[in-house]
């Protein structure tokens, strides 16, 4: 099973073989795929194999697909950041295209989950496994959509000048979101609830970064009304990144549920107060 994995992955991920303009982020994302490989054998050492071999195979396939989907989501998210930063319409279009692949994978996983529930009636950790797969898939699909959305905004503002400080802020936020996503996918692959919990806690950082970016953009727009168009696009981009963070925490919650069998008990720390800062004029 281990031998045919590379060929299988290369079929799904053409960028693994040819990396034309890999930035740091996409390279990291590709690395992530390599690291995500343990997900192909998610059963810990303490887990016996199923008596029904095909059941085992199906569960493994589910994880493999999620790993692929996660890798893909990371990849296009990084690409969408690059597209905004470098004002690269071509890259942005690639992202839009790649999102279709994610949607396709989501459909496949959904179908498989439904068929497994119908045929195998999974119980206990298998049930959580299948349900987690469904939830993670949903979140990843949304992250793909958000990446696509960011890419579209990159297309829209491709020909405008980008104010440096704002772009740096965006980039930071994006990198953080990407790192979180990577981490949570790792946690999923490794079935590590503690790491997931850490991701879940640190979403606060993204929220606060979004807060400050929000304020900054507001100030910027007030100072220079001509930049309202650009700023709005950037604002939505930032919002999308913040949403990616939310989906990442969702995945973290799912991982926690998958491993421990219970939902995270306490409320998540929240720092997004932008909904109440609309009229604040510092």
């Amino acid at each position, binding site marked *: 099973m281990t031998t045919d994995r590379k060929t299988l992955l290369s079929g799904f991920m053409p960028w693994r073989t040819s990396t034309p303009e890999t930035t740091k982020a996409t390279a990291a994302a590709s690395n992530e795929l390599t690291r995500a490989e343990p997900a192909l054998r998610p059963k810990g050492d303490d*887990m016996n194999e199923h008596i*029904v071999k095909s059941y085992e195979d199906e569960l493994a396939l589910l994880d493999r697909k999620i790993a692929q989907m996660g890798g893909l989501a990371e990849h296009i998210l990084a690409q969408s950041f690059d597209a905004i930063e470098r004002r690269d319409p071509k890259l942005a279009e690639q992202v839009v295209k790649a999102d279709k692949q994610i949607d396709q994978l989501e459909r496949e996983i959904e179908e498989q989950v439904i068929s497994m529930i119908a045929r195998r*009636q999974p119980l*206990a*950790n298998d049930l959580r496994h299948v349900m987690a797969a469904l939830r993670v898939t949903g979140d990843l699909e949304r992250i793909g959509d958000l990446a696509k959305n960011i890419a579209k905004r990159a297309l829209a503002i491709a020909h405008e000048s980008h104010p440096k400080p704002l772009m740096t802020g965006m980039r930071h936020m994006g990198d953080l979101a990407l790192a979180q996503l990577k981490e949570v996918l790792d946690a999923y692959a490794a079935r590590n609830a503690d790491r997931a919990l850490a991701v879940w806690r640190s979403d606060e950082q993204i929220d606060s970064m979004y807060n400050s970016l929000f304020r900054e953009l507001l100030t910027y727009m007030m100072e220079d009304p001509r930049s309202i168009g650009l700023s709005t696009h950037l604002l939505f981009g930032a919002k999308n990144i913040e949403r990616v963070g939310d989906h990442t925490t969702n995945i973290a919650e799912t991982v926690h549920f998958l491993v421990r069998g219970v939902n995270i008990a306490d409320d998540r720390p929240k720092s997004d107060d932008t909904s109440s800062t609309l009229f604040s004029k510092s």
Partner: protein
Amino acid sequence: MLNVEPSSLQRATAQAPHLQEPKVVAKDVSVYYGEKRALFDVSVNIPDRGVMAFIGPSGCGKSTFLRCINRMNDTIPICRVTGKITIENEDIYDPSLDVVQLRARVGMVFQKPNPFPKSIYENVAYGPRIHGLSSSKAELDEIVQKSLERAALWKEVKDRLNDPGTGLSGGQQQRLCIARAVAVNPEVILMDEPCSALDPIATAKIEELIDELKQNFCIIIVTHSMQQAARVSQRTAFFHLGVIVEEGNTEEIFQNPTDKRTQDYITGRFG
């Protein structure tokens, strides 16, 4: 159903069985067949008005334990039971307690439908008759009708009460057996894999019946079907090699068992 947050499900069901006094309490029950020990210090509390499921691989002792509760094991000469089982704080292994009296309080439904080779009426009337629960024919008729109604069989057989019980279909026979058990108005009903010989529709009918009966009886069911245990029971105990490995609310057992053996068994990973 599955999308409901597990924690809220747990909260909803966790309280009910715990709050009330348990109906059947087993403490350190061990069973020996000659030299061989079949049960090792089994202790469990079984709540009233609910369904308790025993699951576990074959030969794990779940049926043996079930048969301790109405002392059916007494019929096996080499079988020896130690420990204490009480029903409503009354020790059922007390020498002064009459085992026939006990079995009137603890009804039993068996794996294979086993109606007497007599008429449907006689099958149901047998228990009340030997226990003298009715003083007249009219009273007996009423008991029979009520029992058959409770077993959801009355509509199907009311016009042929004098037909042999063995002429019914498997599912009907099993419901007849349930009616027979219900007729003596027991407190506890033991069911030893009641659906293992039935088709899915008949099984569903029995499960629906169990759901009804749990309003009035304490039901203990041994089953090999995990799904069935998950469907009908509120609490589940997992037996393995003569011990209760894990016992708890059914949702918990089937969603997030704490013991690895339970997990392996219910997910089909037993080595």
